[in-house]
């Protein structure tokens, strides 16, 4: 793999640079390290940094940009008629790529020489058959244009890779050489290295911002693309969710309201389970429990938070669902027809959220100063009266914040609803019916062999955007409430 070799080569040059830089600086000081401005290792390190950092930056940018340039120039060689024949650029391009990959395989297994692959033409051979003989299966016959484009694609990729290697190595050597030329006793190597390290630290910290930007752009562009194909008003106010599975042609109803309703209903049930249990557990553990009980019960409850959501999903699908059916199914009450239902998902999600609510509330209740409790006891209140009339009001903003954070968790939860809530989108009040949520539909619209240009696939990005805005809004609101209404005790 040439890329691996390139990286190893850069690292080797950097190492050589380190040794040379260190030695050169020591030599310029006549072998007396007291004359140097910095410790000798800094002279080596600055050379290594100059060798690696610019080259790595160029390498990454090159790897990201090259596919684009190659794709667009290959596409420009194709005649427009091909694209107009009822398919899109991306489909033609994937054909071209498949043929090129086939040729690559043929060359790498030695079944075809490099020259033969480059000079292959559709006039004297059936490319599909030739490649098929070599174990490369192609879906359809290869036209002359596609073969030509594939050959151009391969040629450009090869030159691109070669140019990249040359340019990156030149930059490595140039950087190392430049830094090496400066290694002498008076050079302030430590300051230079520390400036470089600080820049790297800042870059690492900025990655968080970059991730957010990445999320927003990934969602935004595809959402805009979706709204070009499907009217935004129908999406936000449509009460029917019925994507057509045939792909193009059939009209899909993509209204978000049934999904929003399912999401909120399931989250509501989850909170109805989690908030009372979590809150009372937190109150008992922080106000009544002996240190011994607390040291056992608190970690045990928090185990529930460490269990992966796929486990809860399976628990909902295979244990809780069938259990609820035996309790409310057609043999007894007849309320429930299948194991997957709002109740199933909500109940299990509630279990998942108990430790979330309890440990956040625990922290908040513990933050209420002891003096307030003592004052209340001094007035003759019982412990429960103190809790209800003094501690809970004081901790209320924090607890509301905790509940909002739990709600945002519930809304964004995926695996439990994918496995436990069912797939039918409907607006109904019956909690024993199957409903579906935003997250479950994102999964179902984006898995499988969907064509990314169709509204049925793009709708997932609009759903994702809605989800992102919703959870972000809840978080910001929760933090705002906590900050704004937090009593300051000192």
């Amino acid at each position, binding site marked *: 793999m040439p890329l691996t070799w390139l990286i190893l080569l850069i690292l080797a040059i950097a190492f050589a640079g380190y040794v040379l830089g260190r030695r050169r600086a020591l030599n310029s000081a006549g072998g007396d390290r007291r004359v140097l401005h910095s410790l000798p290792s800094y002279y080596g390190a600055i050379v290594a940094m100059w060798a690696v950092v610019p080259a790595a930056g160029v390498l990454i940018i090159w790897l990201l940009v090259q596919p684009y340039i190659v794709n667009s120039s290959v596409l420009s060689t194709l005649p427009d008629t091909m694209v107009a024949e009822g398919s899109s650029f991306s489909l033609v391009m994937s054909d071209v790529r498949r043929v090129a990959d086939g040729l690559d395989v043929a060359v790498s297994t030695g079944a075809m020489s490099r020259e033969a692959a480059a000079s292959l033409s559709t006039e004297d051979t059936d490319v599909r058959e030739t490649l098929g003989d070599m174990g490369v299966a192609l879906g359809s016959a290869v036209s002359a244009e596609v073969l030509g484009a594939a050959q151009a694609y391969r040629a450009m990729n090869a030159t691109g890779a070669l140019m990249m290697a040359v340019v990156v190595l030149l930059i490595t050597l140039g950087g190392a050489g430049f830094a090496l030329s400066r290694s002498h006793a008076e050079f302030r190597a430590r300051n230079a290295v520390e400036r470089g390290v600080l820049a790297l630290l800042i870059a690492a910290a900025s990655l968080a911002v970059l991730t957010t930007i990445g999320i927003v752009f990934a*969602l935004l562009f595809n959402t805009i693309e979706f709204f070009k194909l499907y009217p935004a008003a129908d999406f936000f106010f449509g009460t029917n969710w019925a994507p057509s599975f045939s792909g193009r042609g059939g009209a899909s109803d993509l209204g978000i309201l049934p999904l929003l309703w399912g999401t909120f209903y399931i989250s509501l049930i989850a909170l109805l389970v989690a908030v009372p249990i979590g809150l009372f557990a937190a109150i*008992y553990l922080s106000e009544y429990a002996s240190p011994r009980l607390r040291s056992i019960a608190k970690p045990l409850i928090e185990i529930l938070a460490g269990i*992966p959501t796929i*486990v809860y999903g399976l628990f909902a699908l295979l244990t809780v669902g069938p259990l609820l059916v035996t309790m409310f199914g057609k043999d007894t009450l007849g309320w429930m027809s299948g194991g997957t239902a709002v109740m199933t998902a909500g109940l299990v999600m509630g279990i998942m959220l108990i430790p979330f609510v309890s440990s956040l509330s625990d922290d908040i209740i513990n933050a209420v100063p002891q003096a307030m409790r003592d004052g209340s006891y001094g007035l003759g209140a019982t412990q429960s009266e103190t809790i209800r009339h003094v501690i809970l009001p004081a901790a209320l903003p924090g607890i509301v914040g905790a509940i909002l954070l739990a709600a945002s968790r519930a809304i964004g939860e995926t695996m439990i609803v994918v496995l436990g809530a069912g797939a039918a989108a409907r607006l109904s009040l019956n909690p024993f019916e199957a409903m579906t949520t935003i997250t479950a539909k994102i*999964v179902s619209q*984006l898995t499988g062999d969907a064509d990314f240009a169709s509204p049925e696939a793009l709708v997932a990005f609009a759903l994702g955007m809605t989800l992102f805005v919703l*959870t972000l809004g809840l978080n910001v609101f929760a933090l705002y409430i906590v900050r704004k209404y937090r009593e300051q005790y000192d």
Partner: protein
Amino acid sequence: MTDASLSPAAAPRAGLIATDARTRKRNAAEKRFRAYGICAIGVGLLFLVFLFTSILRSGLPAFTQTVIDIEFTVTQEQFDTAEGKMLKTKEYEKLFIAALEGQLQERGLEVAFDGKAIQRLVGKPGGTIRSYLQANPDRLGAPISFELAAASRVDGYLNGRITRDSLVDSRFLQASDLDLIDALQQADIIKGAFNWNFITGTDSGVDNPGGAGLGASVIGSFFMMLVVLFLSLPIGVAASIYLEEFAPKNRWTDLIEVNISNLAAVPSIVFGILGLAVFIQFAGLPQSAPLVGGLVLTLMTLPTIIISTRASLAAVPPSIRDAALGVGASKMQSVFHHVLPLAMPGILTGTIIGLAQALGETAPLLLIGMVGFVAREYPEGFLSGFTDANSAMPAQIYTWASRADPGFYEKAWGGIIILLLFLITMNAIAVVLRRRFERRW
């Protein structure tokens, strides 16, 4: 001064020793409140117990497999005649059936069965026997013991999933076979064995739950965790060092801080969308590759690692920094030579917990194509382990859970036991690290 306290409406007091109705009411309320708390904790723990019993009860059968263990002798003569026939494996099957009948009669168990029944129970044993004899011709004439894996329905009958009442005759299993199974069980020929294939094997097709194994997806998860570890640890530590030790108070650092705390709360499925749009659509990385999964999980884990790393950096007392600066170290040297080593146990603990979280995360993997891919093969080498399509443990569990054959449910639960074992081990390591190396200043 008013004399409100002397108002005639005041309730008469019964005395200091006897409790009045109001006090009793208040005390009862106190007791009730306490009981609510105990109930809440009880319910929470009950859920935990319920969850774990149902995992263990449904998952443990995945680790055992029913085998038919039989010892019999094939003579050179029998071998030669069988090899001379047209249907060679059929002849071996006859030998097998004869041996089985012989051993049942020896123990005085009378049960009628035919070749079809044997096929329903163990598939076609003839092929296995023939290939063994061909590979080891020197064993001819001596007693050889064969262990043949029984069909998954036999498994189901023996561990109670299928009962005599619930069984519907089909080409997979018939009611008459159950007598044979009972007889074989009495004769100690049919028995449970540890299913190594479940741990080391690869995924099977949709119609063969018995042969499904988790091994390949464990390797997939391992490569993902390598990516997460080698990206998120250095980046997370670097970011935390900057924010905790160097960052000036300005707009940019505020923005970074807000971003980190918000990213920690973004639903994991959104990171999956990011991975799909940026790494697969935009950067053209291969679908279902552990590399892509690792990158997505890195972005997800970073906030966790940054938050815990900052806490452990902040726990190092300022006197350490001051002392380093006092003997002439630069700011950078004081951080890298003194503060960072002292914070390392805390950082590693946080990293392991972050990795454990990433290991169990499923939702983003669904979007980058790790589900639906059938992990039938181990990756060929170390580098292709990152880029070849593979599954991961939670994705494999999801795949099994969504298959139609209920035989896979058992495998899914079994997979969860293995996943939880990994998580428990990682968390235990984190706890030990914390106990052993944490310093209180």
